[in-house]
Each structure stands twice: as C-alpha cells, then as structure tokens.
C-alpha cells in the first residue's frame, strides 16, 4: 500500500544543532503514530518542515506521491495536511464558534468575500457538530482567550480538524495540561480521529499517553530515528531509554 506521507533523506541543521538528519519516514493512511524523543531531538522541526514553515536543507517530502517540499504553510494546508501546535494558536478575541466558523469559511475558499456574512446557518451547524465531537459545546460563545487550558488545546486541534484534513499533525497535544485532563483530552480526540480515518501523527513527551494511544511509535534523538515499532517495543528499547530517561 502506498504511503500517504513520506520524507526522503530530510536534513535540517540550525547552526550546529541537528534537528533532522537524513530522515526517511513513511506513514500509511489512517494510522496513528506517536513520535517521542528528548527536547531538541527534532520532533517539532519535523512538523515544521512537513508543513512548510521551515525549509529543509536537504531531502524531499512526498504527500500522496506528490512532492510538496518547499511549499508554504498555506499551500500545504490547502492540500489537506493540518497541524496543531504546542502552544495553542487560537484567535483569542473571537468566540469559539467564530474561530470554527472562520475555519470553515476559509476551507470553502471564501476568505476574500466581503459582502456576505461569515456566520451562516449551515456553517454554524457544522461548527456545532465539531464542538460536540470535541466536547466543547459549553464554551461555544466564550472568547477563545478565556478558555481553560484543556479546552484551548482541544480547540486548537478542532480548528485543524475542521479543515477535514487527510493528515493531522499534532504537536504535544497534552503538554501543559493537568494530569487529570490529559486522558480527557486524548479520550475525546482519538475516537474522533480514528472514526474519520484521518492519518494522525503526534509528537508527545508523556510516555504514558504514547503507550496508551499510539499504534506505532518513532523515537527520535538528535535528528535521527533510533527506534521504531509498537509502543511497548520502542519504550523497552535500551537506546530509547537511554536517550529519553537517562537510564543505562
């Protein structure tokens, strides 16, 4: 089966820091992959490069067989790859509903309309459905800037999800979230993602989260993959334990 997303020999250096070194990865449609690794191992860089925020020094990225290296984030988003952020990137002064409705309007290519109203019945309906899926209905008319942390994270993912992407990249979806809310966030997210068949790649620091939810795990260190496989296998791997937990 052809991979929906592949990177070939991806390399990115920031000065002396090796963020990515000859990374050749491949992702299948619909799978749920976790990426772990110590800070600075290149996890976020991978997401940045795939989505076009940063240009790689070498290597290529292929999406559905098409070369997308060097495209802008906007172009990449249009093609169907969406991304959520380590620090939620929301429109803080707009309400949760407005955030989503805007995402829907932009998805429909209507960003430049200036006469018709943004808020329409059909968009509102779809937005409400997304809110339901993400368990955010109670916040519908609240300003995004006033949401509690867990809700912000969920909204951040919801905004990316509203684009109905083929691939969703999530950068630390549970970081900064209290321990109790972590499972709440993931228990809400994962069923939605699996249910819609979106290929999900998420970067995570929390090993438990990864162990519980990921189908496949990639372990990074200094820009290279040091282990890959099922969560249990990877987390038991001595090289991984050394890099992540400092254990011999």
């Amino acid at each position: 089966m052809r991979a929906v997303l592949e990177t070939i020999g991806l390399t990115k250096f920031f000065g002396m820091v090796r963020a990515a070194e000859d990374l050749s990865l491949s992702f299948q449609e619909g799978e749920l992959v976790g990426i772990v690794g110590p800070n600075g191992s290149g996890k976020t860089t991978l997401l940045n490069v795939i989505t076009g925020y940063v240009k790689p020094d070498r290597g290529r990225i292929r999406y559905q067989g098409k070369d997308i290296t060097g495209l802008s984030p906007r172009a990449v988003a249009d093609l169907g790859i969406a991304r959520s952020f380590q620090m939620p990137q929301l429109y803080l002064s707009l309400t949760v509903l407005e955030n989503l409705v805007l995402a829907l309007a932009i998805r429909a290519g209507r960003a430049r309309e200036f006469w018709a109203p943004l808020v329409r019945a059909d968009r509102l309906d779809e937005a409400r459905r997304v809110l339901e899926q993400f368990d955010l209905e109670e916040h519908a008319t609240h300003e995004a800037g006033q949401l509690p942390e867990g809700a912000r994270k969920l909204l951040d993912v919801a905004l990316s999800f509203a684009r109905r992407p083929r691939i969703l990249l999530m950068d630390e979806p549970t970081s900064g979230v209290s321990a109790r809310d972590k499972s709440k966030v993931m228990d809400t997210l994962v069923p939605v993602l699996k249910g819609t068949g979106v290929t999900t790649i998420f970067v995570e620091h929390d090993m438990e989260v990864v162990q519980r939810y990921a189908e496949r795990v990639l372990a990074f260190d200094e820009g290279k993959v040091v282990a890959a496989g099922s969560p249990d296998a990877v987390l038991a791997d001595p090289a991984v334990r050394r890099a992540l937990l400092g254990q011999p």
Partner: protein
Amino acid sequence: MSAGLTFTYGVVRILNLAHGNLYALGAYMGAWLVLGWGSSAWPALSYLLLLLAAVFIGVTAGPVIERLFLRRVYGKEEEIQILLTFSILLILEDVIKLAWGVSPLFADKPYTYMGVVRLGGVDYAGYPFLLTGIATVTGLLLWLVVTRTRFGKVLISVITDREVSSALGVNVPRIYTLAFTLGAVLAALGGAFTAPMFSLVPGIGAEVIVVSFAVVAIGGLGSIGGAALGALLVGLARATAVHLFPELDLFAIYLIMALVLLFRPQGLFGQVEARRI
C-alpha cells in the same frame, strides 16, 4: 539624534514618536541659554551652554517620560505604545509653545563664530564641521559604551532576554530608565547643536521625527551603526536633491527609504525577528 532613537528602540522596544520633541526641547533650551547668557567675550561658553542644555533636558525629561508613562505600557500591544508616545508628542508640542512662544528663536552666534573654512579653494561654513565632529564622537562613544563597558554588557543582556537578566539580579527597570535617558540626551544633543543653524519654530520636533524615522528605518531598528549609515545616506540624498531638484528634497529621502525597505524590509542592519511556534 537618530542614534538615540534607534538605541531607545533597541533597548526598550518602543519607537518613541516624541523623540523629535526631545530634540526640539534641546534646541529651544540651548538657543534660549545662549541668547540669554552667551557673550561674545567668551565664545566657548556658548558651546558649553548648548551641551548643558542638552544634558539638562535629557536628564530631566527622560526619566520623567520613562517612569511616568512608558513604564505602564511595556507589556501591552504595540499600537498602545505608539499612541502613548504620540500623545506625549502632542503634549510636548504645546509645552514648547507655552514655554517659548510662537515667534522664531534664532541663536546664531555659535554658528557664525566658527567662521569659514577654506577647503580646496571653496569656502565652507565651519560650524557643520564641528557638528560632524561631535556627531562622530558621540556615535563612537555610544558604540564603545555599548560594546566595551560593563554597563553596555548589562544593557545587551537586558535586550536579549529581559526575564533572565532580571532573574540574574539586574535591576531591569533602572536599566530601562537609564537607557531611555541616554536616548533622550542624544536627541537633545542633536537639537541643541543644530539650533544655531536655523531659526527655531514650533513644529520642528514633528518635522525632524519624520526624517529621523526614515534614517532609522533605512539603517535598521536597533542598530547604531545602521543609524549612522542611514543618516549619511539621507543627508547625501537630501543634499543632492536640494542641488538638483529643490522641490523634491523630502521626496528623495522617502524614495531611498522606500527602495531600501522594498529589498530589505528590516533595514540595512536590522534583524528579522522570527516567530517561534
């Protein structure tokens, strides 16, 4: 003067629209002192007076503005910060009118005293040479202070990371005040020493900030060397324009600025600030 502007921006991250008024205050104060106390018997005194005026203005207005006003908007959005300095500009404009009236002030003795210098068979006024000398010396001093002295190093650490510096025990608010005051002194210096060259009227503060911004934009915000280069370019452009197309001198300045910014939006020596996600 532009060095002061870019310096202030570099440290405090606020572009002080009222900087031109500090210049004007320096000019008026200087002119007033010279007219009041300068005497032909002891010409050097008038230069001292100009210097005094500049320092006085800088050292009084600077901290007042910084502590009373700027301090309250440090964390806020840029628009609010700019508006704040704009309102200070408005206030100072009228302060000048109230203090010194509307009729022009002209203290030309320091200028005429420098007489005429003969270079390559052409007569040049001597005063501009003095000005250039002072400007160069000041610029160098500033650069030296920033790069060589301990104060300079502390300054740079504050610019780079305010929080860390604070955690390390640096009295950040005091540094901000000092830096701003230094910028103010520079502005007033520019004003005081240019004052003898022309007749002072209310409104020079505003005129000057517009050109000064062009200089700073060309050189890159926060770069002192850039400001120097920018000033040079602007000065040359203006002189050329005045010589060839007198109507277009202002236009020439903005043309250069537009061209530079078109190809290098952050100015010649400015730094691009990337956003981290």
